């Protein structure tokens, strides 16, 4: 059933600006790093990252990718929910023989899936950029995959939160404001303690163990998803 819901959801976003956004984010992140490395080639490649060119590139990509994910997931959730809000299709969808849980998780999974596509594009784009910059083919795949997918996993609570807010409010101004504020807050999150969820996607913690951040994100993500579900299944539909 969940697969059928997901396939219906994918059909709904066909020919929508959403797909453009999914590509735009990674292109932006990798493109900006291309400019960064292109303009400061001698300084960055010749000096700073001389001993670990790939490591340097990956680090720079991640620093840009996390705030982009924060803002991207908010816009995405808003657009995905907006498809139902626009002509109030909730009443049609929820009067079908599907459970509310399935519908809500369907939206969540769609968000997750699309962001996974974006994250993967960032990883692929980084490889292309590194090769173009002449960093050779000794690509540290492990480092690269962790640098891309760990933040994605640690940011799951925010995917769940924005999905919940966007589904709940017909007017997307509030969810989007929360999303933008979240991105700004995240950029100063280093100053907060390790308990601060906005810090997790940066994978920084006292124990210097990225997996702690990932574990916190996944666990708390489930909690937020469950809270959203509990609300959605009880709510009356307009």
């Amino acid at each position, binding site marked *: 059933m969940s697969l*059928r*819901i997901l*396939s*219906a959801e994918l*059909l*709904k976003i*066909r*020919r*929508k600006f959403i797909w453009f956004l999914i590509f735009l984010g990674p292109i932006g992140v990798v493109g900006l790093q291309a400019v960064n490395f292109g303009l400061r080639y001698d300084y960055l490649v010749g000096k700073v990252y001389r001993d670990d060119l790939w490591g340097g590139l990956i680090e720079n990509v991640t620093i840009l990718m996390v705030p982009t994910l924060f803002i991207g997931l908010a816009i995405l959730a808003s657009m995905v929910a907006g*498809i139902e809000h*626009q*002509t*109030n*299709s*909730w*009443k*049609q*969808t*929820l*009067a*079908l*023989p*599907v*459970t509310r849980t399935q519908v809500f998780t369907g939206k969540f999974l769609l968000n997750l899936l699309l962001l996974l596509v974006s994250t993967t594009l960032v990883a692929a784009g980084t490889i292309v950029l590194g090769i173009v910059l002449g960093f050779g083919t000794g690509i540290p795949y492990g480092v690269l995959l962790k640098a891309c997918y760990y933040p994605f996993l640690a940011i799951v609570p925010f995917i769940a939160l924005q999905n919940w807010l966007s589904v709940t409010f017909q007017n997307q101004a509030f969810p989007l404001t929360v999303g933008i504020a979240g991105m700004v807050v995240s950029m100063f999150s280093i100053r907060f303690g390790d308990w601060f969820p906005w810090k997790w996607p940066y994978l920084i913690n006292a124990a210097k163990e990225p997996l702690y951040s990932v574990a916190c994100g996944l666990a708390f993500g489930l909690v937020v998803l469950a809270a959203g579900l509990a609300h959605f299944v*009880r709510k*009356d*539909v307009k």
Partner: protein
Amino acid sequence: MNEWILETNGLSKQLGGRAVVNQLNLQVKQGDIYGFLGPNGAGKTTTIRMLLGLAKPSVGSIRIFGKDLRKERLSILRKVGSLVEYPSYYGHLNAIDNLETVRRLLDVPRSRISEVLEIVRLTKDAKRAVKGYSLGMKQRLGIATALLGQPDLLILDEPTNGLDPAGIQEIRELIKSMPREHGVTILISSHLLAEIEQMATRVGIITKGQMIFQDSIEALRRQAKPTIRISVSRPEEAWRMLLAKGLPVDWDQTRLTVGEVSDRTVASIVAALVQQDHDVYRVEEERVSLEDIFLEITGGEGSL
């Protein structure tokens, strides 16, 4: 075995601190076209939302196909098609893709899509984005969506909302043919009696959240029996005289009326009046339309 295909028991909904739907006992028989009538704000849409599980009743229960909606929502909804208030659609998709998004959840064969498009006569425009459709076409797409899962029960909330007379006529014909051709039971809401009196077999009239009439359309029509009004030069005197002769006339200080309208009675009354030298100005038949009855039952705050 219960004869009702849809039945509510003491159904109530509290919204904003007042009972928007109050102790409703709705009863729809298999094969009915049930006209669910009431003025604006009577609580029709709120009731229908509860019937579809979109809103939870504050009190009361709903049984559809003999099953409790709270316990067997999915298996009930599998066989219910609905259109609530105005049609839902994804404007950027064409009609086929719109139906496909629903079909994937209903799990009916793909061929159903062209079948329902044929029924609502949208086949020609099926490949155009729905946002370019006229309101009538969107409404028809909504009905096509409702029909997609081959429902046994169709719940339509004001399906002719915003349509022109031709569109209304078209939807009416479509709905009328449904029980005949597909064995579907239909509950259709409206705030205009005239709009559904030609197709409904049963009517339920609701006002301020309460059911005030529920019976066959014939029973409602019977309340619409005509009367004869007579204007004469000296009505009060005429009334006394006619009563003395045992003729059934009423006098309400302004009008002389006859409830029983057989030709024989009217003839005797006129004859008696002429014999007693009354000037008879007019003898006219007054018909109460169903719409008048509707207005009367709903306390005058009906349609317009």
